[in-house]
């Protein structure tokens, strides 16, 4: 359960046996042809895989550098890559005979994905969400309820994702015998980071199959890091540069950012040893990003290792740069990306123009921007749209 120095299982004893049970169930499932077949069928016939690889011809021409390809996770059912993992874990839950799932959510994307698969597979679903996030993401809360999930308001801490995750873990501790905890990113105690990577690597596997030419660089945004690991993992052994992009918020030199690798230090969060944002006493610090999907104080332990071993280069992009990238991608390609994904786009735009025309890059468009309309409307004035 380690990635170099990182990972592990830093959890209350109560969870150790459930995690062991989960690990062996996962190992069995990943060897089971029927399970993999069902997973792949749901992805294809329900979720809409394969997602296209779109050549961004206008953006490529505008920048005049490397050819730019977009992996279109924004077209997946429920609007982001999150569903790949939710389907995988929910099928596993069912296989383990657990018909109650719990999930944490920040902006609500993983909550919606969890509520969706719960509906589809006939499981009950409780989603833990910070009370502040519930206020900010009214629409996604309604969506989860419409899908039949129960949304549980978390008032501890600042009422955001970190606290919702704490509370989900606490609930799981109390109910681990018949509940399956469906974590939304490559975080948490072993075997979660590995499991979520297993269920997200379809992104990179497909990309490999779809690309008809060599790729020089791949870009993906990193909050917890599931879309990035999903994209990077199948390329780790290949000669391709991998770039993960964190949220620099209002700037990595201000206190308001979520650039965990750039500015954080190793520590334990949500059961895993990784990089995180903390004060000198080891108290976890609340991160900030305009993108609700990136403002997580930790990061998946595999990313921590890829950072330390320098296999992946990590950069950071500010709120403003990301918002500009939303507008640019919308106008160049008719694709309104999620603000999360726009972080990867912004970095790619910076670099693509410096690259030569015979090079090629892939950007993982991890989700669509529909969920961000309120934020974007607040930001872009009438003149900003001229």
């Amino acid at each position: 359960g380690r990635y170099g120095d990182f990972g592990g299982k830093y959890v209350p004893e109560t969870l150790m046996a459930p995690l062991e049970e989960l690990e062996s169930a996962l190992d069995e499932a990943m060897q089971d042809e029927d399970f993999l077949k069902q997973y792949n069928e749901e992805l294809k016939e329900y979720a809409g895989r394969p997602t296209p690889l779109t050549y961004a011809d206008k953006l490529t021409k505008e920048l005049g550098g490397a050819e730019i390809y977009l992996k279109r996770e924004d077209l997946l059912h429920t609007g982001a890559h999150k569903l790949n993992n939710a389907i995988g874990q929910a099928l596993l839950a069912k296989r383990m005979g657990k018909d109650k799932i719990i999930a944490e959510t920040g902006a609500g994307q993983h909550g919606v994905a969890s509520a969706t698969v719960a509906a589809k597979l006939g499981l009950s679903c409780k989603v833990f969400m910070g009370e502040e996030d519930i206020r900010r993401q009214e629409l996604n809360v309604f969506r989860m309820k419409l899908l039949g999930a129960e949304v549980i308001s978390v008032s501890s801490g600042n009422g955001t994702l970190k606290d919702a995750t704490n509370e989900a873990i606490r609930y799981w501790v109390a109910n681990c015998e018949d509940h399956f905890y469906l974590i939304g990113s490559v975080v948490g105690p072993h075997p979660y980071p590995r499991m979520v990577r297993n269920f997200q690597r379809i992104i990179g596997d497909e990309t490999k199959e779809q690309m008809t030419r060599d790729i020089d660089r791949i870009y993906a945004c990193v909050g917890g890091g599931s879309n990035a690991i999903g994209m990077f993992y199948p390329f780790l052994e290949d000669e391709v540069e991998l770039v993960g992009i964190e949220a620099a918020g209002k700037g990595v030199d201000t206190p308001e950012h979520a650039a965990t690798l750039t500015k954080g230090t190793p520590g334990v969060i949500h059961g895993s040893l990784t990089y995180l944002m903390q004060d000198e006493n080891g108290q976890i610090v609340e991160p900030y990003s305009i993108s609700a999907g990136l403002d997580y104080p930790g990061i998946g332990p595999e990313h921590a290792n890829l950072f330390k071993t320098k296999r992946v280069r990590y950069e950071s992009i500010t709120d403003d740069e990301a918002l500009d990238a939303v507008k640019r991608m919308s106008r160049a390609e008719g694709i309104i990306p999620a603000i999360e994904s726009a972080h990867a786009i912004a970095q790619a735009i910076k670099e693509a123009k410096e690259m030569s025309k015979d090079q090629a890059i892939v950007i993982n468009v991890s989700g669509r921007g529909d969920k961000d309309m309120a934020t974007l409307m607040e930001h872009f004035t009438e003149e900003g749209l001229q």
Partner: protein
Amino acid sequence: MMKQQTLFQGKLTKQKDLFIPFIVAGDPHPDKTIQYALRLQEAGADVLELGVPYSDPLADGPVIQKAARRALDAGMSLRKAVEMVPELRKAGLNIPVVIFTYYNPVLQYGHEAFIDALEENGVEGLLIPDLPLEESEDLNERTKEKDIELISLVAPTSEERIKRIAEQARGFLYCVSSLGVTGERKEMAPETLSFIEKVKEHSSVPVAVGFGISSNDQVQLMRKHADGFIIGSKIVKLIESSLEVEKSGDEQEGLRHFSDEVNELVQA
């Protein structure tokens, strides 16, 4: 199984009927912690669990979360909590003290420096609720070297892990009586008693039961079936109510109220 002598440096003269209260260091501020600790000793506490407040306490319920918040707001930290122990001694506390802390502050402190600090400040025990057996090798070694007891936990889900954990247990074995986080529970599941039996079978140290004990009836039951009982949330609640009494009276009245309530809770 006959229990072996623990390393609580002779301060612990008995191996049964242990009353182990938990309070949060610095709740609501450091001076008060000393007062409560002394009152708990008066009420018969055998070991004091001194909790270090943490921003993200995964194993704690709302009562202790709130106490931790109060303590953090008062500036408490792992370092200060450890440094509070000599002051507790000076004020008259002589029962063993177990520092209860989540792992991340320890990691930031540094294993070596932290264990040195425990030794220097005369701390007898350490309990890290999110550091299971598999992740505790280094700290286990280091605490052994310094004669500090690293307390282990077993839970109802531990099953085949019980034997392994119990056999390596030191100081006392913290037996989590039910699933879930800390906090009061109205009833005790019938499985709990057989679970405690099983744990006792394998443990070479006293087995103390915690999580949810909040009434004298439960205390009586534990006195009968376990080697000790840990009370956390309920004690923290009594602190809260003593603070309420203080508001309408004076400090002494609040502390008197606290003592009365604790005595009532743990009376034999």
